[in-house]
C-alpha cells in the first residue's frame, strides 16, 4: 500500500507532534492568536463569561456524545455527534480563553478535567440525562436557540476580540444545530399520537430550566419567538414559565452532573498528563 493510500499511515510518521487521530496533541486551539485583554475589559468578568459559556458547551457535548450507539437511526447518531463536536470546539476555545484571562494560567484540560462539579458554571439544562429522544431534541432546541441569540450579540459587540471571533464562528454552527432540533420537534410534535405525546412531555420537562438560561443572558424575546414559532408548527403547547431555585452559573447543580464528570474525567485523572 502506498503511504498516502491510508490516512492513518501518514499520521504514524515520527516527525510531528500532532496526533489527533490517536488521541493526543489537542493543545491550544488559540495557538498564535493575540490573547492580550483590551483596555476597558474586566478580566474577571470576561473569564466568568467564557467559563460559563465554555462549560455549557462542554457538558452539552458530553451528553450529545452519549447518543452515539444509542440513537434511533445511524444518521441521527452522526448528526448528534457532529453537533457535539462543534460544541466541544467552542468549549475548547472558550475554556482556553477563560484560563488565559482569569490569572490562574489553567489550560483547557485543567479546566475540563480537574474541577469538581461545584466548580462548574454550566446551566443545569445541559447536565440533565438524555432521556427520551424527544427530550433531547427539545433541550437542544432551547439550548441552541438561546446560545445562538447570545452569540449573535457577542459577535456584534463584545469588547474582547477573541470572544467576538469565537462567537461569530459559533453563530454559523448554532444556526445548523437549531435548525436540526426545530425540524425534529416539528416532525415529532406534528406526527403520530405517540410521537406528539412524547414530544409534549419532552418540552414540558425542559420548561423549568429555561428561566435559568435567561438569568445567564436575557435574550428571552428572541428565544421566546423561536419557541413559539416551533411549538405552533409542531401543534405543541408551550409550557408556562417556571423557575427553579439555585443557579448553575453560581455552581448549583443537579445530582446528574457528578456522574457525568466522573466518566468524562476518569482517564485524565487516572493518568495525569498521559500521552498515547
Amino acid at each position, binding site marked *: 500500500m502506498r503511504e498516502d493510500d491510508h490516512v492513518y499511515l501518514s499520521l504514524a510518521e515520527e516527525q510531528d507532534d500532532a496526533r489527533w487521530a490517536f488521541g493526543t496533541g489537542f493543545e491550544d486551539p488559540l495557538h*498564535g492568536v493575540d490573547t492580550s485583554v483590551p483596555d476597558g475589559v474586566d478580566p474577571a468578568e470576561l473569564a466568568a463569561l467564557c467559563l460559563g459559556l465554555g462549560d455549557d458547551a462542554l457538558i452539552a457535548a458530553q451528553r450529545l456524545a452519549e447518543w452515539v450507539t444509542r440513537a434511533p437511526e445511524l444518521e441521527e447518531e452522526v448528526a448528534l455527534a457532529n453537533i457535539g463536536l462543534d460544541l466541544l470546539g467552542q468549549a475548547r476555545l472558550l475554556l482556553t480563553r477563560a484560563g488565559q484571562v482569569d490569572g490562574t494560567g489553567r489550560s483547557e484540560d485543567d479546566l475540563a478535567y480537574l474541577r469538581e462539579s461545584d466548580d462548574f458554571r454550566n446551566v443545569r439544562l445541559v447536565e440533565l440525562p438524555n432521556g427520551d429522544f424527544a427530550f433531547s431534541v427539545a433541550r437542544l432546541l432551547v439550548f441552541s436557540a438561546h446560545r445562538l441569540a447570545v452569540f449573535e450579540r457577542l459577535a456584534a459587540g463584545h469588547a474582547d476580540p477573541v470572544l467576538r471571533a469565537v462567537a461569530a464562528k459559533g453563530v454559523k*454552527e448554532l444556526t445548523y444545530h437549531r435548525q436540526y432540533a426545530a425540524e425534529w420537534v416539528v416532525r415529532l410534535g406534528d406526527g403520530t399520537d405517540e410521537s406528539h405525546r412524547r414530544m409534549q412531555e419532552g418540552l414540558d420537562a425542559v420548561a423549568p430550566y429555561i428561566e435559568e438560561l435567561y438569568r445567564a443572558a436575557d435574550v428571552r424575546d428572541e428565544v421566546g419567538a423561536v419557541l413559539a414559532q416551533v411549538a405552533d408548527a409542531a401543534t405543541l403547547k408551550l409550557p408556562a414559565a417556571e423557575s427553579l431555585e439555585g443557579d448553575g452559573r453560581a455552581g448549583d447543580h443537579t445530582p446528574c452532573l457528578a456522574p457525568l464528570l466522573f466518566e468524562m474525567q476518569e482517564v485524565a485523572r487516572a493518568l495525569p498528563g498521559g500521552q498515547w
Partner: protein
Amino acid sequence: MTARASTARQTTAREVAERVVDPELPMLTLADLGVLRDVAEDADGSVTVALTPTYSGCPAMAEMRADVVRSLHEAGFADVRVRTVLDPPWSTDWISADGRRKLAEHGVSPPGAAQRDASPGPVPLVLGAVREAVPCPNCGSRDTAETSRFSSTACKALWRCRSCSEPFEHVKEI
C-alpha cells in the same frame, strides 16, 4: 539578503504552504479550501503562516498546522510559526473554483453560495423550507434528496441520488 531574494523566498514559502492538503479532504489543498490566510517572511528570515479553522471543533486543524510546518521545514525554512486567525470566520464561499471542481471530480458535491443575508437582527428560523436540490456528482441528476444534514465530518451533509441510487456527500454552505 536583498529585497528581491527575500520576496522570492516568501513566494516559495507561500507556494509550499499552498500545496499542503487537507487531511480530511485530501483532494483539496489548503489554498483550495481557503483556510490559508497569509504567508509572510519576517525580517529575521522566519516564516509566519496564518490559518483559519473551518469549524470550531474541526480536529484536522492541528494536523494541518503540523503539515504546514513539516512541509516548510522540508523546503529549507528552519524557523516557521503558524498563527491561528479566527476573524473573519471561514466561509465555504472561500473554497476556490479549482477546489470546487476537484471536489466534484472526487464524488463530493461542492457547496452553493453561503446564505447569510446582511440584514440586521436575529438569524431567522425557516421551517419547512424545501432545500434546493444539489446535482448528483456521480450522474449529474438533480433528482436528489438530503438524507442527513450531518455526515462523516462536520463540514458535510449526506445526500442520495434517486436516479443512480448512489449516496454522496455535499459540503454544506456555511
